[in-house]
């Protein structure tokens, strides 16, 4: 009896172990299984997945369905799975998806989110030169070559530019009702600090309004002072320096002056006192609680765009000349993933969305009569409380879109003209290969995130903290990194 029982349990144990092995292998394979699914799809019908940034919209399914109707007419057999991800988590989610080699076709990438250069270096995207030439000649032609050049990494294009304003320039925006009320002469603002009297007026007379959104705006301030920044924090070169000497921004007189002023503004209450701990100003912006803020791009019609977004008029005060830089060009791109099963179809689709007005307007504004109304042939009015809206400058070239009511008829022509006239940065087309100094850059990033915010919001005393910041940057290897940048620039200059 006892023997029988023990034999039974031994057998049972074996079964259980086998079962466990079976389950874990099944789980393993189901994990990998996703990768193979799409490879089997035949040429006739192809489903493309496109990840981009947008808050989920109530009516998006309807809009995407109509979009697919248009696509199926123009590109038979292609269906696009539009996958908007919410902006707050876009960076992280794309990072995980790309790192886990998820199969998808197109994603939005840029210099500021889902970083273009890092992804290219790590092999996340396909080189597009051949695909562009073969499958999207119209698209290739619609964007000037000097813009394409800005996207090149190691000589190859890895992203399709959503062709729009390509230059960057610093500017203040000022709430118009306040400008009118206090008769502030905006033409008096030439220099970064010329806004001060206005801040003072607002502080003294408008108790409910905070004069300035934040003082942490070194990059636009630097541009205004003739200093141009590179990707690596606090490396600058001077506008009129033909030798392209890279300087340590922290040790320039401009930076010292800037910190001093910012500290003064903080102490006078021109910014909120908890400015250092606030990460999101969007709600207060919509509520009109700020009088002045900064912009990194100037483009025709931007006053109307701001009004549509925030609901009040503002005046733009340009502070620097528009300049074409690598960073300003790679601000909005769509790239084809190296996991894509159908790169040629993806390229054809990118051409379609960048050249087809009907499709692009649908994705931008939704359905006519439901989400927007036509005011004229070229102008539209977005319905109040619309259930569909999108940041269309990430989805293709806005030059194909309707204009908003109030925007000048020649907005797009003016923008194109601005692009042509914008001064190309002396470093246009140069992209810094961080690999040789990667571990130093990691340390620099850490030091910057520790010191910069408190200093540049004015929350701490620069006399005490700036020397610390400089010292810590040196220890982190900023000097070596700068030398490496200089070396690569010098090499790049000889090949140009």
């Amino acid at each position: 009896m006892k023997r029988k029982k023990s034999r039974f349990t031994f057998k049972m144990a074996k079964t259980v172990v086998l079962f466990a092995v079976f389950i874990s292998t099944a789980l393993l394979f189901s994990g990998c299984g996703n990768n193979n699914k799409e490879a089997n799809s035949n040429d006739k019908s192809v489903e493309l997945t496109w990840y981009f940034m947008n808050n989920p919209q109530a009516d998006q399914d309807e809009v995407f369905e109509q979009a697919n109707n248009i696509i199926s007419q123009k590109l038979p057999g292609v269906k696009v799975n539009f996958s908007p991800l919410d902006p707050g988590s876009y960076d992280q989610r794309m990072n995980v998806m790309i790192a886990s080699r998820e199969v998808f076709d197109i994603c939005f990438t840029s210099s500021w989110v889902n970083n273009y250069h890092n992804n290219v270096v790590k092999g996340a995207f396909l080189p597009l030169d051949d695909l562009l030439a073969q499958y999207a000649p119209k698209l290739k032609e619609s964007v000037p070559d000097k813009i394409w050049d800005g996207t090149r990494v190691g000589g190859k294009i890895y992203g399709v530019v959503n062709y729009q304003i390509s230059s960057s320039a610093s500017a203040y925006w000022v709430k118009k009702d306040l400008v009118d009320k206090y008769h502030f002469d905006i033409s008096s603002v030439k220099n970064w600090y010329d806004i001060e009297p206005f801040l003072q007026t607002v502080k003294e007379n408008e108790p409910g309004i905070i004069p300035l959104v934040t003082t942490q705006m070194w990059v636009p301030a630097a541009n205004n002072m003739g200093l141009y920044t590179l990707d690596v924090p606090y490396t600058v070169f001077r506008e009129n320096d033909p030798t392209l000497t890279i300087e340590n921004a922290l040790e320039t007189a401009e930076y010292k002056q800037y910190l001093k002023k910012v500290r003064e503004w903080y102490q006078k209450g021109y910014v909120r006192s908890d400015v250092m701990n606030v990460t999101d100003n969007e709600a207060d912006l919509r509520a009109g609680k700020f009088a002045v803020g900064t912009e990194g791009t100037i483009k025709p019609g931007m006053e109307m765009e701001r009004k549509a977004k925030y609901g009040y008029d503002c005046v733009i005060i340009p502070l620097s000349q528009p300049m074409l830089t690598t960073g300003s060009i790679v601000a909005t791109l769509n790239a084809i993933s190296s996991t894509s099963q159908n790169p040629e179809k993806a390229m054809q689709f990118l051409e379609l969305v960048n050249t087809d007005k009907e499709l692009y307007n649908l994705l931008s504004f939704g359905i006519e009569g439901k989400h927007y109304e036509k005011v004229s042939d070229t102008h539209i009015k977005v319905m109040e409380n619309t259930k569909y809206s999108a940041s269309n400058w990430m989805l293709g070239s806005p030059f194909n879109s309707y204009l908003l009511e109030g925007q000048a008829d020649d907005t797009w022509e003016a923008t194109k003209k601005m692009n042509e006239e914008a001064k190309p940065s002396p470093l246009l087309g140069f992209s810094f290969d961080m690999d040789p100094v990667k571990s130093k850059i990691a340390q620099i990033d850490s030091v910057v995130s520790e010191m910069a915010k408190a200093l540049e919001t004015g929350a701490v005393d620069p006399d005490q903290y700036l020397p610390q910041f400089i010292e810590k940057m040196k220890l982190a290897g900023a000097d070596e990194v700068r030398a490496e940048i200089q070396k690569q620039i010098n090499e790049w200059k000889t090949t140009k």
Partner: protein
Amino acid sequence: MRVLAISKKSNIQHKPVAKRFKHFRDNLELSLLALPAIILVFIFSYLPMFGVVIAFKDFRYDKGFFGSKWVGFKNFEFFFQSQDAWRITRNTIGLNAIFIVTGLIVSVSIALMLYEITNRFFVKTYQTIMIFPHFLSWVVVGYMFFAFFNVEHGLINGLLKMLGREVTNWYTEPAKWPAILTIANIWKSAGWNSVIYYAALMGIDQEYFEAATIDGASKFQVIKNITIPFLVPIMTILTILAIGGIFRADFGMFYYLTRESGPLFPTTDVIDTYVYRSLRTLGDIGMSSAVGLYQSVVGFVLVLVTNLIVRKIDPESALF
């Protein structure tokens, strides 16, 4: 038959092995109950260990695990060369040590106090109130603390103003934060941890207490000589386990409570937040895996060492 024969044979030669096998066989049903957990641990803790190779590679997405280039210990450089290496190591170990000690004292005290309450209703009420913070995410707690410590609208500064005292900009005063973090940690975890001790207390035979009362022992003597000794083994085990994690800071806590305030870093920057900050823009998987591996190895060594010390002092309480 064959099995029996083998076990009989080994019975003579390797007694312990056979004994162990028999032990397993006799408790087969119980062992089976553990199987789901074993499978989960295998899938989620053992299979991914394969990923440590990334720490030694220049990982490229398109080349994958096998195709990426080996770079030796290059990924470890950024961490060990960092000027802040000493600071973050000190903060991580120091703060975690404070958390372990204070957490232990407070949780055990709470458990002892709950044990003294005889009314079920009150015990449950107190427990619920104290466990509740455990379920709040650090993001939420971070905002709650912000409501207290905000410079302008914070409750604490409001109170200070009312009392005519000078207000403090809490988010630029590093000296105050070890205490604040300790309080936050106790508030959030002590109630939850006390449940384990409370459960252990419930298992003590009432006769000990009766005997002590008859002998005329005071409340304090009962706690010192009966209750605490019963708790020592479980206290030791939980502490050994906690020491294993001493090199791993609770990212949520250090990130959200301090609101990434630079001036606080001298006392609040820990390994996890440092790695996050350094690699956020660079997004280098190899480097972050390197630090993760380093943390795990140190944690593993620390568990072994602690256990060794415990075994020397009191073999009964050791984990293994």
